[in-house]
């Protein structure tokens, strides 16, 4: 029996088009397989292993011992408070320093902004360790900064700038700054110049126009950048270890200490798990306030 011509037309090439779509989907999946494999190998497996270790006591049996200790000993709470404090302060310093930088970059004609952007990114391409030790050299008692300050009469005797909180914050802010500037710059670049013109045309003074138009329009980029900085700080190790000189104890440095002195994998893992959960919680809470995907990847 012949098919009715209408139905025949609506099915024209239907099978072939469908199977073409299927093929493309398989190809996509195939292309991402290596990445999925790597992630599984280097992220999910080790984290799962640490998670397991944190619930095992010295004799290899299940226990909540490590988590109990964390609740019992005040020192653990202090470490977490210090971690959040350093992270928050670093984020704050980055905001104060980074906002004007991003604003400046976004206001420049693209020819110049490229050059200045390079200056912001340059530290990115230098080893973290090198940069941290460079700060150690600059900030120490007989370092460049102290010498300079004494010479121009800012202070008379060397000030302790390193192996303490000050040094840690200086170093961390320097290393984290690009992470704040980049998303913020992206958000500012998306603000059309006519936005500010319109505000001023409607009667807003420059300060007012900034407050009610520019700031709200760049806030998503600021929030995204701050979040990245804050979260990266939470797990930061090298800089607090080197510039903190043992006086700034954050979770990551504490984990190393536990491993070095007690060789206690369970306790170290438990700390790691709690830090991971805290980080996820921060991300979740922040995600409820801001739509980061649009801030980072543009409008969909």
């Amino acid at each position, binding site marked *: 029996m012949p098919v009715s011509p209408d139905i025949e037309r609506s099915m024209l090439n239907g099978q072939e088009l469908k199977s073409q779509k299927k093929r493309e989907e398989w190809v996509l999946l195939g292309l991402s397989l290596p990445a999925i494999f790597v992630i599984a190998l280097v992220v999910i497996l080790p984290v799962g292993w640490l998670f397991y270790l944190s619930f095992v006591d010295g004799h290899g049996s299940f226990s909540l011992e490590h988590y109990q200790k964390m609740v019992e000993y005040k020192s653990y709470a202090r470490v977490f408070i210090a971690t959040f404090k350093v992270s928050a302060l670093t984020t704050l310093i980055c905001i104060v320093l980074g906002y004007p930088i991003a604003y400046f970059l976004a206001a420049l004609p693209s020819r110049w902004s490229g050059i200045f952007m390079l200056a912001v990114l340059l530290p990115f391409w230098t080893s973290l360790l090198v940069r941290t030790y460079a700060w150690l050299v600059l900030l120490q008692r007989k370092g460049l900064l102290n010498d300079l300050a004494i010479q121009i009469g800012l202070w008379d005797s060397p000030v302790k700038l390193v192996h303490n909180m000050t040094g840690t914050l200086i170093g961390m802010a320097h290393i984290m700054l690009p992470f704040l500037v980049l998303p913020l710059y992206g958000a500012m670049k998306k603000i*059309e110049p*006519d*936005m500010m*013109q*319109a*505000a*001023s*045309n*409607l*009667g*807003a*003074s*420059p300060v*007012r*126009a900034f407050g*009610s*138009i520019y700031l*709200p*329009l760049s806030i998503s980029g600021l929030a995204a950048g701050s979040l990245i900085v804050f979260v990266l700080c939470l797990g930061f190790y090298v800089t607090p270890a080197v510039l903190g000189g043992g006086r700034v104890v954050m979770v990551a440095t504490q984990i190393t200490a536990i491993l070095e002195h007690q060789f206690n994998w369970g306790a170290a893992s438990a700390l790691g798990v709690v830090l991971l959960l805290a980080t996820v919680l921060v991300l979740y809470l922040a995600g409820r306030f801001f739509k980061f995907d649009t801030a980072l990847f543009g409008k969909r």
Partner: protein
Amino acid sequence: MNNPTALPISIRGLTKKYGDLNALNSVDLEIKSSEFLTLLGPSGSGKTTLLMAIAGFNRPDAGSIKFGDAEMVLTPPHKRDVGMVFQSYALFPHMTVSENIGFPLKLRGLAAKEARGRVDEALATVQLSGLGDRAIDQLSGGQRQRVALARAFVFRPRILLMDEPLSALDKKLREHMQIELKQIHRQLGVTTVYVTHDQREALTMSDRIAVINHGELAQVDTPEAIYNRPKDQFVADFIGESTMLSLTRGGDGRLSFGSEIISSSSPNPSVLKWSLVVRPERLHLLERDVNTSEKQVVFRGHVKEYVFQGETGFALIALNDMTILSVRFGTGARSRIRLLELGALVSIGLMREDIILIPEEGQM
């Protein structure tokens, strides 16, 4: 309606240079209070530059811009109190429709209740009542345009500036908005400077049109005068369709095309070379071949081509090897010209009242 608070704008010697380029070259322009004046010119002619100078967004190199008696050229934009509709609308994406429109009122310290009333009133004027709580990205292009307009006039500025506000809209909506803008202008009576490079839009909407070219004003006149009495070749060419016919000048000063006498005397004896501007729709097909007379000039030629364009079309008539006249015709059943065969010999009449003479380029 004449708005008592509307202000005239007086521009004198306004010059703006970008490097070597004279974006504005000593522009003089008087805009009357409550007038709707359109700046019309090709791309890059300086329309936006002039408008931005009035709004205060670019600093001219020299010149004076007065609103009424007050010199404005040094006043920062936020103190000029002019409403402006940006080509891109420039609506604030983080505010609702009402917040956008209410923004200038908030800046002027209006009480919340009064501001709300004014916003609702403005929304009604642009026929957007009930959409106040929408986010900007939930609006269509035409609706955005109206929000931008409402925001520009809600604070009752004495001057309203618009930079190609309709260019992003499709033809139907654009024509609808043209009429609406005109009505709103009549209702508010605010001095309005409107920028477009669409000549039809300019002719439709304006009290007067200022034709601008290379940063200089070519002609400032009513739409009818601009169309019927263009001053030079640029204006004649830019506004409407036209064919230019070079005329020869006899010893007694009479101007003729071939053997047909177009004018018995030159409009300005010091100008030697003149062109006849022929508008395609001012030509008509003659039933019988007659001679040029007191009433009309007659051209003869062969039909070369027809082009159908919907409500009208045009025929190309070759007068000789060099000159082709375009004749516009209706496409209805009564239009005889479209029944002529290609190659047919026809006589085309041009009424003497419709003769437009302009000096040929490169003199004066």
